[in-house]
């Protein structure tokens, strides 16, 4: 049967989809792709449902080989060098890996996670409606654990449909927006101001459960223990040492540290794609504003099919690809110092969490 064989892969790479919902009351977290926009774009390029299971590739390199037939795939998310059998290929587009050829990907540049969707979607045995890997709960299919070299992903034989690219939406640079609370009353006004006025960096010890932040110490008013209550993707907990942790897709469903703020859903993917060591800031918005932004984001997700474009020129423009994939001047979505690289209309920022020039 036609398949994709993982010929090499780094840690923090796993099959992810839109996540599993409805069992948080039993302690089962949602999981799912760290960058849902990039996941949806990759799937849309192939005519899959937007949140079909795909390979989420962590910051390190990876290689995939098509066996027993050609396989059509799409690449989105954090850009990196990419080639099929030595021929450079572009991100934010579909492509066909010929039988026995290998798609080789370098390290993520200016982002953290890339997505490799497979035509027809990855198939497996869903649990709670999802194939997403949640290793702690023993869930995920075809493998209930991060991917390893030698793993095989069943695929459908390439349809031969024309390859397409997806027009990137306007870049959304700027600070990561948060709604204060639910436990912002556990912090003094000075502590909240310090949280909002400071520059933060994501610690290298971050993972799909949580992003640990490096910056000033945020002190609690009444100690760091609260009676556990529910968490969401983007909850910002402040544990005893005063170093905030943003809870991500594999978070615990409840937690016992005060939550100073919550990242708004449209900005969570941007935070997820912020590489360790990149400085960024938070900005507080009202619930009303956050919900307006959430609705715009939902509209953006729905608009992806309208953003598909044919690939007119089959001849590869190596220079353009070089710029796109291995540009040394990548910009960060959250690092204001790099924003001047983004064209004023914001186009070309890509579907990765970071902008990149075209």
């Amino acid at each position, binding site marked *: 049967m036609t398949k994709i064989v993982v010929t090499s892969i780094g840690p923090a790479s796993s099959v992810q989809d839109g996540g599993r919902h409805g069992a948080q009351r039993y302690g089962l977290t949602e999981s799912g792709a760290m960058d849902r926009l990039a996941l949806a774009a990759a799937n849309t390029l192939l005519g899959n449902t937007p949140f079909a299971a795909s390979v989420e590739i962590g910051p390190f390199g990876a290689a995939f080989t098509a066996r027993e037939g050609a396989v059509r795939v799409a690449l989105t998310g954090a850009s990196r060098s990419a080639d099929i059998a030595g021929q450079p290929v572009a991100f934010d587009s579909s492509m066909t890996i010929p039988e026995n050829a290998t798609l080789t990907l370098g390290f993520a540049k200016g982002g953290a996670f890339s997505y490799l969707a497979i035509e027809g979607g990855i198939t497996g045995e869903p649990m709670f409606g999802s194939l997403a890997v949640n290793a702690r709960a023993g869930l995920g299919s075809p493998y209930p654990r991060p991917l390893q070299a030698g793993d095989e992903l069943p695929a459908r034989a390439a349809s031969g449909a024309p390859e397409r690219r997806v027009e990137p939406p306007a870049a959304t640079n700027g600070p990561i927006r948060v709604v204060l609370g639910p436990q912002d009353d556990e912090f003094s006004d000075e502590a909240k101001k310090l949280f909002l006025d400071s520059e933060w960096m994501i610690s290298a010890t971050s993972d799909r459960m949580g992003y640990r932040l490096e910056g000033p110490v945020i002190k609690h008013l009444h100690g760091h223990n609260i009676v556990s209550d529910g968490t*969401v993707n983007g909850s910002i907990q402040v544990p005893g040492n005063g170093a905030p942790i943003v809870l991500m897709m594999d978070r615990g469903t409840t937690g016992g540290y005060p939550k100073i703020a919550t990242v708004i859903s449209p900005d969570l993917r941007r935070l997820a794609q912020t590489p360790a060591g990149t400085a960024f800031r938070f900005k507080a918005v009202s619930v009303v504003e956050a919900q307006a932004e959430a609705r715009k984001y939902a509209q953006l997700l729905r608009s992806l099919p309208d953003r598909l474009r044919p690939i007119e020129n089959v001849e590869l423009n190596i220079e353009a690809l070089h710029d796109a994939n291995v540009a040394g001047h990548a910009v960060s979505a959250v690092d204001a110092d790099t924003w001047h690289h983004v064209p004023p209309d914001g186009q070309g920022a890509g579907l990765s969490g970071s902008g990149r020039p075209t």
Partner: protein
Amino acid sequence: MEATFPPPRLLPSGDSAITVEFSKVIDETANQRVLALDRALSEAAIEGVTEAVPTYRSLLVHYDPCQIDFATLGEKLLALAKRPVPPNGKTRHWRVPVAYGGENGIDLEDVAKALNTTPDEIVARHVAGKYRVAMIGFSPGWSYLSGLDKSLHMPRRQSPRLLTPPGTISIGGVQTGIQCVAAPSGWHLLGRTPVRTYQLHREPIFLLEPGDRVTFYAIDTKTFAEQEKAAENCEIVAELMAS
């Protein structure tokens, strides 16, 4: 009877969830109100509400901001929370076997020392308790029980353990709990149960519901090993008592 409680606080958890907070502390009445709102919300089937997570003191309500906004949902939740708390009529009662002490409960002796008593006495007090599932959270099937004997209240460990075994029965603060999958924990480990509160390929996958009653009984290591095997084969092992 009219509910005479103050209304809960509505706290935003970002753009897609509301924390309905009844109390800041562990409080039996608050937990009853949380569970009552959870049931009322489920019956009300409000469009846009996707799931709810009851905890000791609050109900976290996840919703889709494209279908309902914070203010509208908040009002509906406050109206539902005004309803009197129905008496807890139909709760299930589970009897859960525990192998206490030894390698299954490596903290039992230290707990006895800290509380100036014997391991047997700790076990006697723990099995005498009538518990209720106050919430399930953190990791799959991790069931937090209220009703721990006051004489067993003690602070959590100074340094949490990075990994504690599946089935661990432990105490921490004013709580006791049943842990299902291996996980970090700062609680004191008293024993292990063969009962799996979460098991794939078994019906039901999740055994306990918030609000269920739980009591423990002691088993020896031989029985533990036998029941572990049965549990592996998807047997429920815990006894469901008629209530």
